[in-house]
């Protein structure tokens, strides 16, 4: 049970109300949240410092133009912020941010973290082709009924970590059948409580895990299994991989969009992995044919080796892929089982070391004997 701030307004307006309060009462210097850019639905993250700009804030808008974790990392890369800023971000974005901080790519200091029980987001395509408009209308319905909203990102539909781990406040959406009338903001930390002193609305005590959230988690888990099983359709082994990545342009957009891929210059874009004409010719002799540019599969599995243990399944990689490769599905499948193996949930605990920066003497002892 934790304290819940109830604002007698629809969940979206309620959220804005909260942000308005935080900014106007000068409890925070600014608010980092999604903002409407134009009428055809373009939204982008913004640091809002003036209350009047809040009218365009759409903190819960079901779209993820970029993974906010990546942005906040860049924001605090040089140094931590020295004045409180409220950041509204989704569970997977928060987890990404924490994974990045573990790699000294930013700092949590002075952030007031506001998150929500996440109903998922729509693919960016639905924005470009306009389909999101009718989708959004049913989004809140399904969220309310703890259903999987149709047409959301595949990884979202299969995401069981929709209840944020480290947020100071969590805006309840999933399974809140009164969300049209009331906005429930769970105050998970002391910080959360302090910042809401004097906020509009009343405090009650509730539990964030409900039958509904359990129900959605179950559905998502089923969906996850389905999603992963579908991958098998391509068969397995190298042939399957080749089919999957057949259309890959080697643009490496997936790594650029990935919040965990934090390297300034990706190893796979560096000279280290360039070929000499002679190495091409050797391979040409062996195979009588080589794909150019080379190393398509090497890149994807290599990138996997580097980051998949921290993959938060946000789905950005799939969304930016110009040739619709289900990158995120593949990565979350591998990530899922690998993370289980190392008993590691990315972004769950900021103190928990990244699996490949540590080891236990008494583990995997059967190996090597």
């Amino acid at each position: 049970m934790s304290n819940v701030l109830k604002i007698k307004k629809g969940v979206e307006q309620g959220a804005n109300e909260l942000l308005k309060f935080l900014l106007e009462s000068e409890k925070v210097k600014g608010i980092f949240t999604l903002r409407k850019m134009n009428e055809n639905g373009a939204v982008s993250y913004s640091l809002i410092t003036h209350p009047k700009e809040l009218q365009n804030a759409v903190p819960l808008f079901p779209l993820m133009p970029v993974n906010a974790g990546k942005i906040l990392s860049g924001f605090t890369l040089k140094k931590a912020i020295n004045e409180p800023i409220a950041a509204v971000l989704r569970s997977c974005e928060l987890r990404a941010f924490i994974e990045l901080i573990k790699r000294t790519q930013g700092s949590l200091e002075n952030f007031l973290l506001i998150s929500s029980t996440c109903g998922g987001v729509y693919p960016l395509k639905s924005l470009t082709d306009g389909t999101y408009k009718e989708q959004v209308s049913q989004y809140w319905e399904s969220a309310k009924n703890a259903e999987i909203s149709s047409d959301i990102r595949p990884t979202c539909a299969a995401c069981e970590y929709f209840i944020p781990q480290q947020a100071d406040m969590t805006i309840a959406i999933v399974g809140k059948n009164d969300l049209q009338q009331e906005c429930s903001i769970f105050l998970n930390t002391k910080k959360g409580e302090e910042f809401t002193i004097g906020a509009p609305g009343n405090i009650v005590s509730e539990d964030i895990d409900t039958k509904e959230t359990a129900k959605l988690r179950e559905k998502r888990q089923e969906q996850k299994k389905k999603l992963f099983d579908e991958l098998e359709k391509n068969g397995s082994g190298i042939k399957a991989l080749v089919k999957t990545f057949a259309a890959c342009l080697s643009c490496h957009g997936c790594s650029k969009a990935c919040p965990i891929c934090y390297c300034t210059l990706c190893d796979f874009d560096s000279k280290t992995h360039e070929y000499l004409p002679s190495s091409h010719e050797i391979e040409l002799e062996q195979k009588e044919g080589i794909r150019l540019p080379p190393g398509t599969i090497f890149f994807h599995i290599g990138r996997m080796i580097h980051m998949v243990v921290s993959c938060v399944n946000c789905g950005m990689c799939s969304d930016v892929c110009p040739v619709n490769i289900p990158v995120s599905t593949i990565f979350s499948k591998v990530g899922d089982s690998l993370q289980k193996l190392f008993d590691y949930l990315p972004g769950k605990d900021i103190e928990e070391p990244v699996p490949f920066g540590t080891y236990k003497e008494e583990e995997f002892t059967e190996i090597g004997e």
Partner: protein
Amino acid sequence: MNEKIGVYVCECGPNISERIDIDRVLEEISSAEGVKVAKKFGLLCSNDGKNYLADEIKKEELTHLVVAACSPREHEQTFMNVCLEAGLNPYLFQLINIREQCAWMISDKEEATRMAIKYIHAGISRVTLHKPLLKKELDSIPDVLIIGGGISGIEAALCLAGKDRKVYLVEKTELLGGMVKKFSELLPYQGSNLAVIEEKIEQVQNNENVEILTSSEVEDVRGFLGNFEAVIKSKSNGSGTKEIKIGAIIVATGFKLFDPKNTPQFGYGKIENVLDALEFEEMSASGKILLKNGNPPKSVALIHCVGRNEKGYCSKVCCLYSIKFARHLQDKLPGIDVSEFYSDLCLPDKADQDYFEEAKKKGIHFIRADDFELKEKDGKINVEYKAAGGKKDSIAVDMTILAPAMVPSEDTSKLAEILNLPLDETGFFKEVHEMLDPISTPIEGVYVAGCALGPKNIPESIIQSQAASGKILSSLIPGKKIEPEVKVSEIREEFCTGCQTCLSVCFYGAISFDEYKGISVVNEAICRGCGSCVGSCPSGAIRSKHFTYPQLYREVLQALR
């Protein structure tokens, strides 16, 4: 590319020549890119062979040398020296192992030859990517850090300082002397009064070779034999940290007593006048052996082996000091009734037996018993016990003195982590070999002495300190140069994203983080060149010299030709 590579195949007497078709090898590889000469020689590691190689390098103006002979573990250094003489950087050379790995392992001469050719091709394509590396020499540091100012630490300090070694003696309390300082007296044959110890403490304090750092703790240690860096944090006023450079380290952090509260049946902390050994030592040292009510005790029970079952080992010294207590009580309080409750008597040293027999003669009761239960009974302590043979019994006494087990001192595990030392299942430091190498640790240049390794009496502790000092004096000779590893890791700044993953996998603490630049930095004096960091860097920013990705990759490619 204008390499001039010289490839020389060693016949190694019959070893290689009889099992590999060297002439075919030569004709195969002489056409390889960059190869200027390809020749064979009888025995390249012989003096003639070495001179021959050196001449060839000069005559042919070779830029790279490839020798196909035995295992690098055998003669790599030999041929590197040849390069040096001949004015070729020894790292522009590659030794190919065609003896152990081909000639001796592959029966079919055809196959062996083919494999040898593969290996040599790999070596040729690899060597062209070699970069000249320069050996550096560091003076080894003869100074020593001793952690723990008890009797062991002091003894070690004196041994080393006596040989003009600068010694840093770090003690976490304000006082030197450790446990021994708390004793009221030693066993008679150990020199009946404590003056001996006091003397030693004084000697250390007056020795200008010894820098005593009390109220201090070791915070960080990195490096290796002859070249350690340590950070000492002082807890006293100012509480600054001090960086010192030393060549070796002795850990002498001693022990503490098992807390009898963990064995409630002895009533410690609950029943009045139940003391543990140290409390009694202090009491008798103060000269006033009194009960809480101010009267001297008329009857005392001494109980051995408190916590032995819990800990699972015998603490060795309890029996003797308990006897010591008994006799001390008799001297100080004539007519007092003293009973010793023991489960097994441990009397290892030559004089111990007599000491015990005398005690019996003096009328001290020795009762073999277990299953104790101490209760308060009208102002006295009722000691219930099961005597040998199973008979339940009890006596009432004024005072009970417990002899708790010896356990590792505070922060033993913390120190183990800092020094990368293993602990055994009892929680004490683990020696390399209990019998054959009882004071060494897996880390070269780091030794453990005294009770930090487990229960010991004073003489044993002193012996170990002297042994550790001896090891250091013989292995760490002043003026002796150490050659830090040349094939170390290096950071390519422009690639480093500053994630510090490498720091977490470097077991030598050779990598640090440059806050200003926001990148990792390798301390080449400390890096041993294992390359773990390279394997961990996603940005490909770290490179281990002489084992770079391209160099190894060339080998992979050739392996698959």
